[in-house]
C-alpha cells in the first residue's frame, strides 16, 4: 500500500561536501508542492570532514517534530554507514552510491537496498573533480524525484531561481538532476510505496530559519545598533540583520547607512555597546548563546539596576561550558532570568515559531524601552538554525515604536524638577532623558551604585530599599505587557494539564494525539514569557497535576515557576529531554504514559461514535 506525504527521510553526508544546498533543495521542493516539512540539520562543530545529517519529516497532518525511525536513508558517508543502515525502520529504503562495493556484513534483510552508481554516472559527464563531488548531491535529489514522485519542474525551477544571473550554472545542475532521475526511471523499481503528492495544507505559510526572522524583526523593530560576537548558533541573527538592514536601511541617494553593526571583541563588549547605545537613546540589540550570556551577566545586572533598555537574543545550545555547541537545548533559562550578582530579575520572551522570532524581536525592543530594562529573547538552535514552516511575517503599518517614558526638551521645560528615578506614574518606571537634550535640565548621572530618586549617589539603606522595591513593582508592571500564555482548555476542564514552551511546540500536537489514543487527555498551556501571567498559576491550580515539558536536565522552568509563583513543586511533573536532538512526540508520550502507569492515574477512553 502506498503511503502519501508521511515519512522521515535522512541524508547522511560529510561536512563541507556541498550537500547542504542539495538537501535543502529537496525539502523546499516538497514544501513548494504544498506538503508540510520539518527540516533538521544535525551537524558537528567542524568545518570539513566530520559527519553531518539532514533530516526531513514529511507530514500531511503537520506532525513536524523529530521522529525516530528513518523510512528513507540517503547514505552518502562511508564513515557513518553502519549506524545509518541501523537507523532504518524495517521495510525502509536505503539509497546508496553503488559505484564501489559495500561492506556486506552490514546488510539487512528487512530493508530495501536501492543502489545507484552515482560516482560512476557522473565520471563521464563532468570533467572537473570538484563538480563531480558537488553534483553527486544534486544527482541523488534527481534519483529521489523519480522514486518518490517529486515534480521535476519544481526542481528545475528552483535551480533556475538559485542561479539567476549565473546562467552557466543552470545547465549542469539540471543535467545532474536528470542523470539521477533517468537512472532511477530506467533501472530501478519505481515508484516506491512512499510517495509525495501535491497538497494545499501548506497554504500561505513560508519556510524560514528562526534566526533570519529574528534579525528581520530587529530591522522592523527599529534597532539601529547591533553589537555581537560570533557564536554558534546565534551568528546568523546578526548576519540576517546585516543583510536586511543593508537592503532596507541604506539611503538610496547617498549610500549611507541608517544603522551600525559592530562585531565586538567578545560578548562583554557586545552587551556593553548595546547598553551604551541604548543609554544614548538608540535601539540596540545583541545576539548570543549560553557562553556569551554567562559573560554578559555583569553588564545585565548593571542594566537592570541602572535601568537601561537592552535586547539580547539568546539562541540556546547544549551546555554547560562549551557543551555540545551544535546541539539544541533550553538550558539557559535560569542564567537568563536571574543573570548577574545581587537581586535581579530579567524579562524573558520565548518564541516557538519563526513568526514569533520576528514578532518577539520587535516587541522586545518596545518592551525594553517601555520597561527600561534588559529583555532577553530565548530562542534555541532547533528554531534558530533550521528552516521551519511558519505563518507569514506580518507588520501593521499603523504600529508606532513605543520608546517608553522619555522626556524631551519641551517636557523638561514644563516640569519643576526632574528626578530620573521618581515613580511618577506608580508603575515602577521613571522618566528618562537622552544625553544632550536640554541646556540646563534633565542631565543625570547613570551608575551601578545606589542612588536616590534624583540619581544622586547614596548608601542610605532606606533609599536603597525603596529603589529595589520599585524595581519589583516594575516587574509586576511587566506581567501585563509581555506576551500572554497560549491556553487550550477543554470544557469541562481536564483533570491534568501540560505546560510547555519554545520549540516543544513542534511535537506537541502529535504527542497530545498519541496520548489521547492512550486515553490520556490534557489541557495545555504554552508559556511565552517571564514574568508569568496570573493565568499560568491559575492553570496549575485548576488542574490536579500538570506536566512541564522542557529541554534541559534540571527542569529549569519548573524551578522558576516554583520560585515565582510559590507553588507546590509536587503539582508540576517535569518531562525533560536534554540529549541535544530535538524533542520528539514519542518521548513526551512515553514519559507521560509512564507517569500515569507508575502512579496509577485514571485514564479516560473517549466514546467512539
Amino acid at each position, binding site marked *: 500500500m502506498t503511503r502519501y506525504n508521511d515519512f522521515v527521510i535522512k541524508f547522511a553526508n560529510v561536512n563541507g561536501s556541498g550537500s547542504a544546498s542539495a538537501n535543502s533543495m529537496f525539502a523546499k521542493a516538497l514544501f513548494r508542492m504544498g506538503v508540510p516539512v520539518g527540516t533538521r540539520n544535525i551537524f558537528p562543530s567542524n568545518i570539513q570532514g566530520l559527519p553531518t545529517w539532514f533530516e526531513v519529516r514529511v507530514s500531511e497532518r503537520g506532525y513536524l517534530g523529530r521522529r525516530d525511525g528513518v523510512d528513507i536513508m540517503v547514505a552518502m558517508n562511508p564513515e557513518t554507514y553502519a549506524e545509518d543502515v541501523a537507523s532504518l525502520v524495517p521495510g525502509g529504503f536505503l539509497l546508496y552510491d553503488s559505484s564501489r562495493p559495500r561492506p556486506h556484513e552490514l546488510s539487512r534483510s528487512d530493508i530495501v537496498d536501492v543502489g545507484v552508481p552515482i560516482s560512476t554516472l557522473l565520471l563521464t559527464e563532468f570533467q572537473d573533480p570538484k563538480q563531480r563531488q558537488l553534483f553527486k548531491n544534486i544527482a541523488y535529489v534527481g534519483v529521489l524525484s523519480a522514486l518518490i514522485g517529486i515534480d521535476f519542474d519544481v526542481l528545475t525551477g528552483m535551480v533556475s531561481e538559485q542561479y539567476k544571473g549565473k546562467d552557466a550554472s543552470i545547465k549542469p545542475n539540471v543535467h545532474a538532476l536528470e542523470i539521477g532521475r533517468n537512472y532511477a526511471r530506467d533501472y530501478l523499481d519505481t515508484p516506491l510505496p512512499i510517495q509525495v503528492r501535491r497538497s494545499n495544507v501548506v497554504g500561505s505559510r513560508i519556510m524560514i530559519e528562526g534566526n533570519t526572522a529574528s534579525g528581520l524583526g530587529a530591522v522592523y523593530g*527599529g534597532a539601529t545598533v547591533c553589537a555581537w560576537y560570533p557564536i554558534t548558533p546565534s551568528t546568523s541573527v546578526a548576519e540576517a540583520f546585516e543583510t*536586511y538592514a543593508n537592503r532596507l536601511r541604506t539611503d538610496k541617494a*547617498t549610500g549611507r547607512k541608517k*544603522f551600525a553593526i559592530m562585531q565586538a571583541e567578545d560578548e562583554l563588549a557586545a552587551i556593553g*555597546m548595546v*547598553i551604551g547605545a541604548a543609554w544614548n537613546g538608540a535601539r540596540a540589540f545583541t545576539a548570543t548563546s549560553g557562553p556569551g550570556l554567562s559573560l554578559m551577566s555583569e553588564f545585565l545586572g548593571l542594566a537592570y539596576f541602572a535601568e537601561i533598555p537592552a535586547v539580547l537574543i539568546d539562541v540556546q545550545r547544549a551546555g554547560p561550558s562549551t557543551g555540545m555547541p551544535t546541539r539544541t537545548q533550553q538550558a539557559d533559562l535560569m542564567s537568563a532570568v536571574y543573570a548577574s550578582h545581587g537581586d535581579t530579575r530579567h524579562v524573558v520572551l520565548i518564541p516557538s515559531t519563526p513568526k514569533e522570532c520576528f514578532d518577539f524581536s520587535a516587541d522586545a525592543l518596545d518592551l525594553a524601552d517601555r520597561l527600561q530594562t534588559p529583555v532577553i529573547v530565548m530562542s534555541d538552535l532547533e528554531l534558530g538554525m533550521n528552516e521551519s514552516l511558519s505563518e507569514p511575517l506580518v507588520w501593521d503599518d499603523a504600529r508606532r515604536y513605543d520608546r517608553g517614558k522619555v522626556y524631551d526638551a519641551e517636557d523638561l521645560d514644563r516640569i519643576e524638577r526632574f528626578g530620573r528615578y521618581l515613580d511618577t506614574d506608580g508603575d515602577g518606571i521613571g522618566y528618562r532623558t537622552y544625553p*544632550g537634550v536640554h541646556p540646563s535640565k534633565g542631565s543625570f548621572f547613570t551608575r551601578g551604585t545606589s542612588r536616590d530618586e534624583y540619581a544622586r549617589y547614596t548608601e542610605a539603606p532606606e533609599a536603597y530599599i525603596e529603589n529595589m522595591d520599585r524595581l519589583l513593582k516594575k516587574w509586576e508592571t511587566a506581567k501585563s505587557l509581555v506576551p500572554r500564555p497560549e491556553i487550550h482548555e477543554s470544557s469541562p476542564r481536564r483533570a491534568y494539564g501540560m505546560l510547555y514552551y519554545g520549540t516543544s511546540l513542534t511535537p506537541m500536537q502529535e504527542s497530545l494525539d498519541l496520548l489521547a489514543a492512550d486515553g490520556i487527555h490534557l489541557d495545555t498551556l504554552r508559556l511565552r514569557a517571564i514574568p508569568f501571567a496570573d493565568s499560568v498559576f491559575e492553570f496549575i491550580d485548576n488542574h490536579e497535576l500538570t506536566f512541564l515539558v522542557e529541554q534541559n536536565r534540571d527542569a529549569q522552568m519548573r524551578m522558576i515557576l516554583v520560585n515565582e509563583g510559590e507553588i507546590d513543586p509536587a503539582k508540576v511533573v517535569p518531562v525533560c529531554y536534554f540529549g541535544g536532538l530535538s524533542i520528539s512526540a514519542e518521548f513526551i508520550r512515553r514519559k507521560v504514559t509512564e507517569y500515569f502507569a507508575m502512579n496509577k492515574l485514571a485514564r479516560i477512553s473517549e466514546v467512539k461514535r
Partner: protein
Amino acid sequence: MTFVAKPRVHHPQLKLNDLGLTRRDYEGSVSTLCAGCGHDSVSAAIVQACAELSIPPHRFAKISGIGCSSKTPTYFLGKSHGFNSVHGRMPSVATGANLANRELYCIGISGDGDTASIGMGQFAHIVRRRINMCYIVDNNGTYGLTKGQFSATNDKGSTSKKGVPNLYEPIDLVGIALQLGATFVGRSFSGDKGQLVPLIKAGLLHKGFAFLDVISPCVAFNNHRGSTKSYDYVRDHRGDVVAADFVPAHDEIVADYLPGAREDVAMPDGSTLRLRKLAPDYDPHDRVGALAYVQRKQEEGEVVTGLLYLDPDAADCHAILETVDVPLNGLTDVDLCPGEAALKSINASFR
C-alpha cells in the same frame, strides 16, 4: 575631601566664553577624592578646556569605568549626562554611545587599573575602531579604592608605600595606543595645566580616537620616594617633545618667531592647533618613530610628555561604517521601518 559646597555666586570678572558662559557653568558637583589628588586637577583642566572651547556644556557624553578616576565625571560638566559603568568596560559603553549619537562630544575617563588590567582588551579594540572620542587615563600606577595595590602601569622596581618593589614589567598605554592605530596620542601630567588643557581641547576636537595618558599622582598611596608616579619624580624626569597651543577660529594666527619649529594644524571646527617642537629631532606624524622615541627615552628613565602623535585626516568609526549624518538615535519610524509592503516580498522570497 572637601565638604564645603562651592557658592553659586562667582567673581563678576570671571571670563565669559563665546556662549556668554563662565568656567563655573562647566563644573560638576564637589569632588569626593582626597585633597591634592591629581585626578581633581585633570577634572579642572577638562572644565577649563571645555569652557574655553565654548561647547554648550550639555553636549557631552561622559563615560567611565570603575575606580577613583572613574568617579570624576561627576565632578565636571554637571549639565551633561554621565555614565559610571562597569570596571574595565568603559570602551564598549563609549562605543555604543558614540554609535548612537555622533554629535555629542564623547569623553571617556578611565584609570590605569580600569584600562591597563581589567580593561586591556576593550582598550585595545576601541583604539582599533577609531571611535571619535577623547579617552583620558588618570594614570597613578596604583589601585586607590582598594588601598594601594600596584597597577599594571607601575614601573618595575618602583616601590609601594611600605617599600616593596614592583616585580613585573609595566604596560605603556601610549605605546599600545600608537601601535594599534590611535590617530591622536598624548601624554601629560596632572601637575601641568599649561600643557594639559590644550591637549584636552585638541583631543576633543580631533575627529577620531584621541588618547591622553595623564600621569596623575595618588597622594594617598603612590606619592612617596621610590615611586615613579609621584609629583616629584614626574617633575624631575619629564621630557617634553611637542607642545600644543590652541588658537580659536576667530583669533588671528600670528607668525611664529621660530620658523621650522612649529606647525599649524587646522581642526574640524575652524580653529588651529599650533604644534611647537621642543625636541628638535621629533616628528609627531611619524607613528613608528614616535613609538621608538618614547620607548628609548623610557629606557633612559625619561617620561616623554606632550603631543606624541597626530594624524588629522584619518577616518573615524562613523566614516568607516558609512553611517548617515543624522544621529542614529534621532531616526524615527519612518526612517527605520521598511513597512508591510516590503515584508510581503520578503515573505514571497521564503516560499
